[in-house]
């Protein structure tokens, strides 16, 4: 009786899982074994590993995702830390979350306006005497906008981790003679590391396959795996190759998840 009921509760989620997670992944894996002529083949994988283009693209993606994650982290941790100590922190947190409610395309177009030759950014550069610069369609602007978009997803888990931190640990550290910086480095940061890891997962993996931004802001100068997938599915119609890259991305995600999950035995190995 109860067993049947539990099964019923699971049904909606199970259906969702099957239709939108398992089936698509299975389809991608399935497609990746077909060439343009619908013949079963391993050529796609051979191609991926043999031609330097795809490997370079992968490296490129990983490198840019790494940079975006790094900058996001460098900005988000101090922000979350300060935010957490403010009086009206719920309000400030809302301001951080607010931009995530706006569609990513709208934000991208807004940045095109800001970074264009006649945009606000160049107005400012002219004003301080630097003169107009090519801002749009550069690697720097791509990283800048991608970082801007990812920041809330990094701040939130770090903020939550700081919120969960028992202030008694900080007092204990000070009591034992640590100064503010030592307390941060030896107590606060290690204890909020799970939040940072969650943030890395939330930022790094989506950054691997950004393709709208690479085109709109990066001017397609940065070719990431996301761009390649889009090209294969919509332009060259080589679904097999596109799926192969998709599989590679999925594997990359699994690797990142494994790296950022806690595998240490509780208590930690002595350093």
């Amino acid at each position, binding site marked *: 009786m109860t067993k049947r009921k539990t099964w019923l509760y699971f049904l909606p989620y199970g259906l969702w899982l099957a239709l939108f997670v398992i089936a698509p992944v299975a389809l991608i894996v399935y497609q990746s074994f077909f060439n343009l002529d619908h013949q079963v083949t391993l050529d796609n994988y051979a191609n991926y590993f043999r031609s330097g283009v795809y490997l370079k693209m992968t490296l490129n993606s990983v490198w840019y995702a790494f940079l975006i994650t790094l900058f996001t982290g460098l900005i988000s941790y101090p922000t979350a830390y300060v935010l957490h100590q403010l009086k009206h922190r719920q309000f400030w947190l809302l301001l951080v979350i607010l931009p995530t409610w706006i569609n990513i395309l709208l934000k991208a177009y807004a940045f095109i306006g800001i970074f264009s030759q006649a945009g606000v950014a160049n107005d400012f550069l002219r004003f301080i005497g630097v003169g107009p610069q090519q801002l749009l369609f550069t690697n720097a602007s791509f990283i800048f906008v991608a970082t801007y978009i990812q920041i809330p997803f990094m701040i939130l888990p770090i903020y939550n981790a700081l919120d969960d931190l*028992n202030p008694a640990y900080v007092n204990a550290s000070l009591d034992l003679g640590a100064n503010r910086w*030592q307390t941060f480095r030896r107590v606060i940061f290690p204890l909020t590391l799970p939040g940072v890891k969650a943030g890395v997962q939330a930022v790094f993996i989506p950054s691997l396959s950004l393709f709208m931004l690479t085109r709109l802001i990066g001017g397609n100068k940065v070719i990431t795996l996301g761009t390649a997938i889009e090209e294969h599915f919509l332009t060259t119609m080589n679904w097999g190759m596109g799926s192969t890259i998709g599989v590679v991305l999925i594997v990359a995600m699994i690797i990142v998840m494994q790296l950022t999950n806690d595998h240490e035995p509780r*208590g930690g190995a002595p350093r």
Partner: protein
Amino acid sequence: MSQPIIELRHVTQRYGDHTILKNINLTLESGKFYTLLGPSGCGKTTILRTISGFNQVTAGDVLFDGQRINDVPANHRNVNTVFQDYALFPHLTVAENVAFGLTLKKLPKADIATKVAEALKLVQLADFGNRAISALSGGQQQRVAIARAIVMQPQVLLLDEPLSALDAKLRRAMQSELRDLQQRLGITFLFVTHDQEEALAMSDEIFVMNNGEILQSGSPVDIYDEPINHFVADFIGESNILPGKMVADYQVAFNGQQFECSDAGIPANEPVEVVMRPEDLTLTTPAHAKLTVTIDTQLFRGDYYEISATDDRGHDWMIHSVNPAEDGATLGVNFRPQDLHVMRLHEKEAEFDARLETYEGTEESSRDQT
């Protein structure tokens, strides 16, 4: 008297309209076990945080070894705290927790290892260095917290209700362990608790607090035998408190009768309160007794019976007796003059001490006669 290690002078603490500490004066001598005792919210933890450096007082001076330390931050004070919930770092092992303060001092690794091993041995956790904190029981965590603090060799160790999370049996065991540890180390302990039993068992000196004031300080025996007022008498141990009137020196009237007592220096006819401890009262036959009571109920407490009774004027009495009584029986209650303690209604500690000084000697001789 040697130089006090900690001194609070006219310390006052306010948060908005709330006054947490009212003109606290307190002196701690080196090498003694002190207890701040009071109900929750009385300000005892605030005093502890004032000494450890986590609380800035509104007014008054905090002195450490004669130096004013009001503005010295917590990490530069030679005091360490055992926190109420221990606050052991969950990401470090037992040994790493104990070594935390020492590594900050940049001591050589070998020195740290030796000191950590010594500290863990002192709290009987010698083999636990590599354990995770989460793998320890409450009592073991308690000991790690103590080891982490004493390894710093502080001159004063502050303990914030450290036994409150332990079960009754372990708490008793830890009481004697703490007392033993304090005597071996010879450092000053300042222990905060709301448990009067703990305070009486361990302390050299107790400060009884209520509503941000220190009501009475003294040895456990002094405070138990001669509480200064109704609150202290009621808070420390069980007591029978009755309204009375001073007749003359060593004579007090209550329940419509006059009794010999051991208190003096109070003007005649002043309204007072009389305290009698339940274990000082003995039950006898009504014919030989000073008072007559009717037994209401009794509770068996293991080593004694806690007997509730009512006298003919309607006052409730509590009597501790080794032997049971019969419910509803009419029995006599007996006590000796020194079992009565007379409290004036609004006496401050200084006045109380001064009054005691005037007749202490004669009191001792009168006690010897009985």
